[in-house]
């Protein structure tokens, strides 16, 4: 075992005492210099040009970054007019092909489809309905035998179908929407089949389609009052897939679609947050708290019905704040952090909406705080945020405009 060496350190104490007694005179004009510096500081923040330049530089940097993110986001999003014409262009051919494949429309009937024009380019479903109905009318008036592939006898089902549709129309006028939870959507009181449910159900769907066509022919193609569900996602890359295959079916004489077209008018999010800030190092602090946000939107379905959608979000944001400038009362800081938002309650029209996914967002702010007491400060923050793409069953302003500029005013409790 090593023996610890003992030193005689009494000389260190003597050294210390001696050095501490060194006669030191304060620098000449020390106080005058200090006083001058203090006066410059006291002139304050508002008269210091360099500070303003640095703040302006930081703010410009943030604006440029924010602007670039917004510009990128805008470029990725196709304008609605372009979307409509894109859908229209794609859908004309697709409808012809799909209809002929599904119900055995002849070449003559295909020609009729050709002359159909897309009057309302915003409504893909409306177009689909019109196209299919008109096609059938035209074809049935000329030759009813052209729908040979339909494997249900029209005569025998006519009366039953008629009754069903009447009931359905009455019922559907009362209903506005269906619950949208997760991937599976449900039709209230009626079965709904998705494209993933196998060939057997596709066959069954074809059966129903036939009945509907027969009935519609006889009922003068009245589609008014049809109950449309709201689609979770509109696939613009393949619009017809939503229309003719899985998301576009006829049932009980009613042409229904899963992907009814709707438009959103999103209002500005309103929020309130309570935060606390804990200093980690000299100019670095961590901030957290609770934030509530209300996302309110007006949803218009096929340019006809308008209902209100309210989503109430709660989150626990976490952020790091770096104070780059501090005076006695004011401080200026840059903050960056994340915010997981969870929808605690959602409602569209009279229906509740459940969203079981967390909406993550990241953000950067430039803020100014005015200290009103030892631990409480008023702050104003401007910055930009980016909401990460999340597969939500409803559209929100955060998903529509994922990058955005934020402005916040608040009160903060801090312990430094």
């Amino acid at each position, binding site marked *: 075992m090593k023996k610890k060496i003992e030193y005689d*350190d009494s000389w260190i104490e003597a*050294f*210390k005492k001696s*050095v501490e007694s060194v006669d030191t005179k304060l620098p000449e004009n*020390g106080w005058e210099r200090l006083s001058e510096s203090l006066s410059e500081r006291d002139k304050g923040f508002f008269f210091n040009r360099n500070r303003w330049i640095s703040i302006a530089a930081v703010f410009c940097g943030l604006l440029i970054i924010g602007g670039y993110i917004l510009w990128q986001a805008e470029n990725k999003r196709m304008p609605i007019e372009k979307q409509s014409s894109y859908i229209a262009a794609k859908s004309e051919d697709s409808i012809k092909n799909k209809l002929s494949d599904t119900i055995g429309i002849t070449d003559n009937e295909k020609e009729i489809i050709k002359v159909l024009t897309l009057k309302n380019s915003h409504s893909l479903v409306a177009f689909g309905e019109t196209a299919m109905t008109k096609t059938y009318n035209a074809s049935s008036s000329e030759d009813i035998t052209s729908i040979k592939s339909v494997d249900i006898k029209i005569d025998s089902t006519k009366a039953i179908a008629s009754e069903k549709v009447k009931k359905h129309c009455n019922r559907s006028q009362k209903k506005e929407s269906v619950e949208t939870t997760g991937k599976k959507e449900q039709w209230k009181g009626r079965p709904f089949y998705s494209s993933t449910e196998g060939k057997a159900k596709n066959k069954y769907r074809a059966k129903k389609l036939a009945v509907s066509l027969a009935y519609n022919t006889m009922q003068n193609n009245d589609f008014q009052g049809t109950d449309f569900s709201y689609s979770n996602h509109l696939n613009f890359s393949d619009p017809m897939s939503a229309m003719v295959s899985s998301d576009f079916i006829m049932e009980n004489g009613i042409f229904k679609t899963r992907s009814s077209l709707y438009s959103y008018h999103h209002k500005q999010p309103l929020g309130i947050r309570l935060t606390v800030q804990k200093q980690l190092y000299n100019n670095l602090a961590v901030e957290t708290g609770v934030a509530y946000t209300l996302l309110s939107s007006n949803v218009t379905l096929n340019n006809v019905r308008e209902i209100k959608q309210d989503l109430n979000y709660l989150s626990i944001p976490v952020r790091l704040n770096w104070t780059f400038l501090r005076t006695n009362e004011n401080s200026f800081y840059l903050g960056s952090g994340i915010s997981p938002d969870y929808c605690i309650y959602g409602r569209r029209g009279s229906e509740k909406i459940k969203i079981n996914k967390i909406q993550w967002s990241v953000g950067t702010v430039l803020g100014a705080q005015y200290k009103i007491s030892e631990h409480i400060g008023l702050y104003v923050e401007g910055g930009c945020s980016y909401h990460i793409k999340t597969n939500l069953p409803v559209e929100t302003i955060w998903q529509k405009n994922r990058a955005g500029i934020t402005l916040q005013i608040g009160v903060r409790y801090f312990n430094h």
Partner: protein
Amino acid sequence: MEEQEIANKCRRKDREAQQELYEKFGEYLFRICLRYMKQRSDAEDMLQESFLKIFDVIGKFKWLGKGSLRSWVARVTINECLQKLRKKKLLDFSESVENSKNTCDKPYESPEKENVNCIPPAVLQEMLLSLPDGYRTVFNLYVFEKKSHREIAGMLGINEKSSSSQFYRARKQLAKKIINYRKKQESV
């Protein structure tokens, strides 16, 4: 004015109170600066910056009894000095722990207490300033500020062993300087 009153008035940016604080603790703080900064001009600048910092953060000062303001202003000044040394990259503690262990085990010759007392304080201060920045900083913190090696390690972001090794080397060099100085004096 009492310390507490000075602090309160300084919070309200009372220029007279600020001057009084400067006059009351100026010399004491300047001595601290002189121990950490090799050049006098650097120490003067450091004193100025330290006072500006003190007046900036005086709102954070909590009165804990007599002498608390004195130790608080000293702490602010030491922190400012360390920050300055770090910025200038003068604190180099790159040394393996194993190496420092071996170094501390070697004995060295200690000067007599009486020999130290015979040397003028200014000369002793010169000896201290002639030490490398790293050694001097650790020596100052350990001897003058009475910090433990654990605290020093925390303050400087180094290993505890490294702190004790730096102190050992500083002590050894100082001892050698004192002995040599005494020998020279005796020969004269």
